[in-house]
């Protein structure tokens, strides 16, 4: 029994082992189309790209068979001839226009032959030789990739250089901006200070007005004063009427005198006395102190004008500062100047009037000026003609472009040269302003003494020079 049992198990072992071996044979054979029906097609390749017998064959990406054989070409000009065993179920897909390629399963997978599905109009391939496409050359791709990497590296280097340059530029710009901010800061602070002062002045004026200071304030708050002013005006009207009446009376009196009618003269004198008295009353009312203040109307009016002058002065300073601020000075730079009436000789040397004038004419002072009784200069008639003639060069650019009248004097000490040259420039300016109706803001004077600008080619001059620049 034991022997039988041992034989039985040995039989199981042997048969089972052989069955397992057979299963392996069948599985491998079935995947290799050994047992199933297949048909054979052919294709040619210049390079088989490591393909071997038994390599996979796919039809449009699906496993369909294997390479049955590879015929090595007999001559160098021929191609490798591949025998492709394809499963029978793919027969309808493989047409004579199907193209074969050698592909790789993944980046490092095995090579296989792929047969592209043919067109429906093409006949079935029964033992035909399919057209092939050259295999994908990984080495060539790697070379291209290497070239691409080199190109990319070069591009990155270029970009890096440009970025570095851009960063340098930005650094420079930032440095410049910092410098500009540093330069602007005092102006801004000045503007702020002036604005604060202006606001303070305005506030003070408003407070003064609210508290009845000054004439305007009193007019707003002091009813008595308002009544006084009204009365004054009424009195003034009355005075005016009386004056008219007096004038009529004087006329009548003169007429009466001329007609020897003396009683009218007496009446007229009486009316004149009356008129004088009413005038005295009106003036007294105007000069009288207010009910609630020791300040007379005239004093109040004087104070108000002084405060207004101070406020306007501050306002002028503020507007001048604003002109130099970062946002507005571009306009004045493009115009070529900030304020022609307030510019020093050093500042003037840096303007376009000196650096690149559009028109510059030189007028000698021979017969140009005459001295008035008060010691100042004015143009003679001949001088006016000379100026008119020289203005012909400037006229095409008038009236919207600025003109500077430079005065020159060679005589005396520098202070005398300054004063005389200023008078010459002032005389010409006065004439130009009145004769050519030029805008006073666009017409400036510059006492140059005896120092013409260097780029004019003149070392000394006596007379005037008219300079015009075109505003940008």
């Amino acid at each position, binding site marked *: 029994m034991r*022997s039988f049992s*041992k*034989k039985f*198990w*040995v039989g*199981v*072992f*042997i048969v*089972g*082992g*052989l069955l*397992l*071996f057979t*299963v*392996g*044979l069948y*599985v*491998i*054979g079935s*995947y*290799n189309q*050994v047992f199933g029906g297949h048909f054979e097609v052919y294709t040619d390749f210049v390079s088989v790209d490591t393909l*071997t*017998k*038994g390599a*996979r064959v796919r039809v449009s990406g699906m*496993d369909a068979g294997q390479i049955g054989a590879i015929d090595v070409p007999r001559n160098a000009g021929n191609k490798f001839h591949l025998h492709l065993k394809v499963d029978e179920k793919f027969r309808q897909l493989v047409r004579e226009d199907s193209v074969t390629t050698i592909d790789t*399963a*993944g*980046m*490092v*997978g*095995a090579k296989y032959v792929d047969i592209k599905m043919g067109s429906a109009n093409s006949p079935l391939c029964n033992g035909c030789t399919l057209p092939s496409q050259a295999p994908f050359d990984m080495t060539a791709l790697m070379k291209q990739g290497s070239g691409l990497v080199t190109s990319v590296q070069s591009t990155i280097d270029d970009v890096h250089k440009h970025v570095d340059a851009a960063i340098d530029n930005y650094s420079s710009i930032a440095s410049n901006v910092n410098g500009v901010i540093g330069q602007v800061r005092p102006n801004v602070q000045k503007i702020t200070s002036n604005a604060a002062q202006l606001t303070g002045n305005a506030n003070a004026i408003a407070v003064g007005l609210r508290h009845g200071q000054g004439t305007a304030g009193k007019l707003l708050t002091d009813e008595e004063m308002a009544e006084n002013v009204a009365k004054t005006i009424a009195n003034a009207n009355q005075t005016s009427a009386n004056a008219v009446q007096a004038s009529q009376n004087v006329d009548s009196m003169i007429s009466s005198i001329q007609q020897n009618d003396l009683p009218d003269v007496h009446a007229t004198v009486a009316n004149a006395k009356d008129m004088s008295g009413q005038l005295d009353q009106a003036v007294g009312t105007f000069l009288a102190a207010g009910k609630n203040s020791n300040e007379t109307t005239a004093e109040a009016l004087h104070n108000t004008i002084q405060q207004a002058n101070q406020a306007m002065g501050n306002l002028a300073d503020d507007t001048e500062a604003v002109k130099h601020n970062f946002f507005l000075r571009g306009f004045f730079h493009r115009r070529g100047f900030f304020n022609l009436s307030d510019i020093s000789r050093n500042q003037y040397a840096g303007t376009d009037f000196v650096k690149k004038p559009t028109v510059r004419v030189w007028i000698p002072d021979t017969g140009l000026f005459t001295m008035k009784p008060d010691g100042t200069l004015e143009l003679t008639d001949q001088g006016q003609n000379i100026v008119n003639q020289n203005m012909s060069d400037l006229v095409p650019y008038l009236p919207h472009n600025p003109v500077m009248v430079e005065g020159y004097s060679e005589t005396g000490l520098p202070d005398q040269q300054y004063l005389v040259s200023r008078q010459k420039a002032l005389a010409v300016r006065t004439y130009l302003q009145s004769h050519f109706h030029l805008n006073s803001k666009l017409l400036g004077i510059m006492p140059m003494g005896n120092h013409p600008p260097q780029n004019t080619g003149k070392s000394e001059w006596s007379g005037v020079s008219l300079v015009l620049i075109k505003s940008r």
Partner: protein
Amino acid sequence: MKTIIGWVVSFFRFAGELGVFASRAFRDLFRRPFEIGETVDQIFEAGLRSVPLIALSGFAFGVVLSLQTRSSMEQFGAESMVPQAISFGMFKDIGAVITSLLVAGRVGAGIGAQLAGMRVTEQIDALEALAVDSFKYLVVTRITACVIALPLLTTLLDFSGVMGGMISEMIVPGGMPAELYWRDAFAPMGWSDYVPSILKTVVFGFIIGTVSCYLGYTATQGATGVGRASTRSVVYSSLLVILSDVILVKLIFFWFPE
């Protein structure tokens, strides 16, 4: 110097005696009496009793091979080649060698110890006295059992390894389903990858059986000789299996170039 010469002389003497022993065994494989009953017993002992060891070892080896191969393949995105790597590794060479080494360790040692024990206890002499051809009865039957059992065990170990790899691939994250694994494992294979590697284990079985039987059949020096025969059976069998595998692989490449 004398020692080295003695070793060389001993080596060639051993090789010559083993060759003569193997020739006799190979010749007697095809001579009557075939001793079927004893052969079946030896197949039972060498083959059937080795099934659990072989199946479990193959399964474990497949799992390990799957995990190791996957970790390597993942580095260049070739996880889909894991089944192919396992099947090719198991079927083409590793399965045959592992099976042979396992059998050499388990069966070869047993044969060497058993025959050596019979030799030193004069049981073989007793068989001879009973007119029994001890060589055919003890040696040929064991060699036959190894020759028959080893290809079957190798097939079992190969499939166990593929199954272990399949289960591993089904479990690990990013693995693949069984059907896809099965197809990817066997689709790239051909019979030339499968049959020669199984058949070469016949040679391995013959080597294991012959070496073990020779060392046991010619054992001397009592109990010490039994232990020496057992140890040497394993060592020499394993060594000769690996060395012969080098030659067989070259022969397989020669006969099946693709």
